């Protein structure tokens, strides 16, 4: 059966059961949504006339430049760890901004370029944006819904001249559900973010389970000192060293009248702390990430949910050294498992919403692979709270089933700005079910507004995983 017809049938069923006008409206919007779940970037289109793939479609004059086009010199940008600044310095600066009365400007974890096929190179970097008054490039007047560009060659008006698969297997991109963004060649490591997060979080309700393999949890301690380079500058030790050097150089003639402007600082004066790694045996775990990628998730909601999951994911990667298994499930009215964080992160939003489908899939996977016996199971679900199954008639039973084996289920609702607060379907039926109270240690709900920032996201994570 055609996808659309399936959805329509589903819609008719729901209508028979009775819908409020508001619910009806939301469903219709998603049903009529034009979006598709494609991974962005790498826009290669195949030419029907038989010649090989088109080049990436460049839709702006200004993306061309001489270094690249004439000399094939590729774009490079310095990363913060190539230049002198450490993330500590940047965050320090940001804190100072807040004290000075300006909003923070550094985002952590907004950019990511994971590899495919299990080679998860998580890339988390501090980013910022320079705000100006500019015309909104995403705005299109209604008569120009389609994206226009230039073309040359044969073809009658209206004739299709090329196709590009929506699900591009080799695409690369950045930004959740954003599409077209150019690939970022940034490479860094998750160390800094992981470090920050690790100070804050720990998986709750871990139990000794199974004998498949022992999960090694690493604890890191910043005890070792190192001259010249390292992860975290030891300010006290560095200052001491600088003074030592300058006493030696004779720059400190009078102890009562110290003039630090005369000090010379040698690179080897900088003392850093480096890690020593200690092993720690712990239970193993599998974490399910569930993401609602229905049409209503367009924009901020997806951004928030995905960013939060990036944070959780990079923390797990760091803290448990990739020995926690992660599984990724996307759902609209149907759920599917995707192989890696990349697909999970980049898939675009479209379609309707059935939360139950995702819960059902997780239950099926757990049952089929008998995961409950050997693993601690964690489920993180991100949604905007819309559900065609408005009363949770299907979702709640699946959730109850899940709570029988899960160590923690964390649901994040990123509410839309236009709706009323704390009034989404998912939130309502979760509350009505009483599960939030009854299974307090197993089920957590975090509801945030569309305008939530990094700090709010971190708070949310804490709420989801706090013991």
């Amino acid at each position, binding site marked *: 059966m055609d996808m659309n017809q399936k959805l329509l049938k589903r819609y008719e069923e729901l209508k028979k059961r009775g819908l409020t006008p508001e619910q009806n409206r939301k469903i219709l919007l998603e049903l009529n949504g034009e979006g598709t779940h494609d991974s962005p970037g790498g826009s290669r289109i195949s030419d029907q006339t038989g010649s090989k793939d088109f080049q990436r479609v460049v839709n702006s004059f200004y993306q061309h430049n001489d270094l690249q086009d004439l000399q094939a010199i590729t774009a490079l940008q310095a990363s913060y760890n190539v230049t002198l600044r450490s993330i500590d310095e940047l965050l320090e600066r940001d804190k100072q901004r807040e004290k000075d009365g300006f909003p923070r400007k550094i985002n952590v974890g907004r950019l990511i370029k994971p590899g495919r096929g299990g080679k998860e190179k998580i890339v988390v970097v501090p980013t910022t944006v320079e705000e100006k008054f500019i*015309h909104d490039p995403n705005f299109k007047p209604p008569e120009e819904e389609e994206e226009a560009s230039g073309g040359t060659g044969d073809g009658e008006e209206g004739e299709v001249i090329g196709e590009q698969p929506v*699900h591009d297997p080799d695409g690369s991109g950045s930004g959740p559900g954003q599409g077209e963004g150019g690939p970022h060649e*940034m490479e860094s490591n998750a160390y800094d973010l992981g470090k920050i997060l690790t100070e804050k979080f720990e998986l709750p309700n871990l139990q000794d389970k199974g004998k498949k393999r022992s999960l090694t949890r690493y604890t890191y301690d910043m005890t070792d000192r190192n001259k010249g380079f390292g992860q975290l500058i030891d300010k006290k030790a560095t200052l001491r060293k600088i003074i030592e050097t300058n006493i030696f150089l004779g720059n400190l003639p009078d102890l009562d009248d110290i003039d630090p402007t005369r000090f010379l600082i040698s690179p080897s004066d900088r003392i850093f702390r480096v890690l020593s790694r200690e092993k720690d045996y712990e239970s193993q775990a599998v974490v399910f990430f569930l993401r609602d990628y229905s049409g209503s998730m367009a924009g901020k909601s997806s951004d928030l949910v995905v960013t939060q999951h990036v944070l959780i994911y990079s923390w797990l990667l760091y803290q448990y050294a990739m020995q926690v298994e992660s599984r990724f499930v996307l759902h609209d009215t149907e759920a599917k498992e995707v192989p890696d964080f990349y697909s999970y992160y980049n898939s675009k939003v*479209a379609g309707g919403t059935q939360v139950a489908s995702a819960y059902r899939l997780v239950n099926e996977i757990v049952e089929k692979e008998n995961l409950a016996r050997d693993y601690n199971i964690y489920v993180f679900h991100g949604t905007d709270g819309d559900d065609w199954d408005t009363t949770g008639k299907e979702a709640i039973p699946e959730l109850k089933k899940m709570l029988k084996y899960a160590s923690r289920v964390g649901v994040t609702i990123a509410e839309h700005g236009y709706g009323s607060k704390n009034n989404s379907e998912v939130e309502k039926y979760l509350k009505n079910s009483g599960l939030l109270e009854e299974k307090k240690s197993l089920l957590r709900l975090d509801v945030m507004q569309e305008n939530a920032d990094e700090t709010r996201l971190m708070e949310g994570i804490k709420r989801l995983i706090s013991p």
Partner: protein
Amino acid sequence: MELVDQHTKKIMEGCKERARDAGLRFEDETLEYIVTNRDLIELTPKVMIPTLYDYWVHDVEVLKETGKYELYPANPYETVINTRPAISFYNDNNPDWMNVMIFYHVLAHIDFFQKNLYFQHTWDYDFTGQALSDKRMIAKLRSEKGRWLDYVIEFTRGLDNLVGYHYELSRFAYPDTAIRNKRVDYYFDVFLQSEKKVKISEYIKEIERYNECLKASKKTGEKEFFSDITKKYPEFEALYKKQYKKKTGRKIDLIQFLIEHSEFLKKEENQWMKPVMEVIRKTSIFFQPQIRTKIMNEGWASYWHEKLFLKDDRIKGHEVDFAKAHSGVASLPRVGLNPYALGLRLFQYIEELVDKGKYSVEFKRLLNSSDRKNFDKKTGKGMDFIFKLRQNYNDFLFINTFVDDDFVALHNLFVAGKRLNKNKMVWEYFVKSRNAKDYRQMLLDMLYHPPDIQVDLDRTKNGNLYLVHHFEGKPLVKDFISNTMLGIEYMWGNTVQLETSEVAAVPTSQAAAYVSGPTAGMKEEQKPREIKWESVLYTMKNRRLSRIVIRKI
């Protein structure tokens, strides 16, 4: 960075001779550097200007996806920069024949920088030298003022796309004010156009009447002309006097306005901020012409590297290599936009057009297609003409004037559309229109165009700075409004307001963005999305932003 070796420099000097013989004009001295990846890491955040001031944002990955080219008009990956001497950058392993091609390309760019009037304000100084002294000043101030210096840079950069580039240029071409008659100017330039909004035909009639009056009597003609006007429009005199009373001095942009009128910046302890703001402003103005002549500049450079390379006797035997490299740069893409390809073909098309005398009324009146095809006056003036274009035109004029039916037909151009095929789950590219007018409009829509935001002097009072965004059918990026206004408030030292236009919120507006087209079988009618605009006023007061709707449009 290292200079190219003597062997390569000699090749460059040979290129210069040949380029000059062909008519290109540029200063003798140039500097060619080899760049490594490491150099590029340092250069690209500084838009290839080695001496640009330091700023912490240069060291951080910047999210550029939202309107990248609107935010950063300066291209960080140019091969040649508009300095004195001009500096260009090269791979260290380019073969000689390729360097010849690139050198011609670079020389044509230098010619363009130094002869195109949109660059006139960059002609009398060396930007790298200026930038170096600015950089030192900023470094010195940073050591004194610390992070506050970076705030000033940040907040001023928030406005650096609104700089008065055209005011700056207009100074070079202003007619002598002494001989202008202000009353006549006001009547034709302001009164008829803005106050009365008369039709063009009426406007022309008035011009004719004015000329008639002057012809009738040189002395009293003008008086007579205006006596009729006061009869017809009794309010004219009053309006003229009111207008005349307004300060009619030079026009200034927002950054200049802040520098000159901000009470906050006038304070003794804040004086140091002004030169910093001026540096940011000057830097932005320096880069402005680049993005406004991208298509012409790349077209011009491609035109010459092709022409001169093929004539160059030193690289015989590399024609095939050249053909490959050249077509990689300058072939028209099946779908997409390429400034090299478009600019090159336009220059070639125009040259032929003028050579055959087709850029004339006589040709335009011809309707018979075979007459049009065979039309050839053999004027031989094509080359002269494209040199004139390179002196006087920018991208807008270039495209608006010369992308016509014949050009679009000649190269088989079309507007390409992209739509989703749900059954096959593919994006389909299709021929949307072959109409030259549509094609031209599509190109014009793609050109860089910052918003027009001005200080409204009438409503700027009691310390309140009132900005008006002259709406051109596109809203501003909402997320950026708050921080930009916060910066202005800081530098202004008082409340700041911005009047702009936004899409009126209808209950479904959020979702409407992805709704289009009815789905088969749906009973509910989906109306085509209709946009209602409303005029809104943002107010930034004590670092808090508020927004009210002023009126529906």
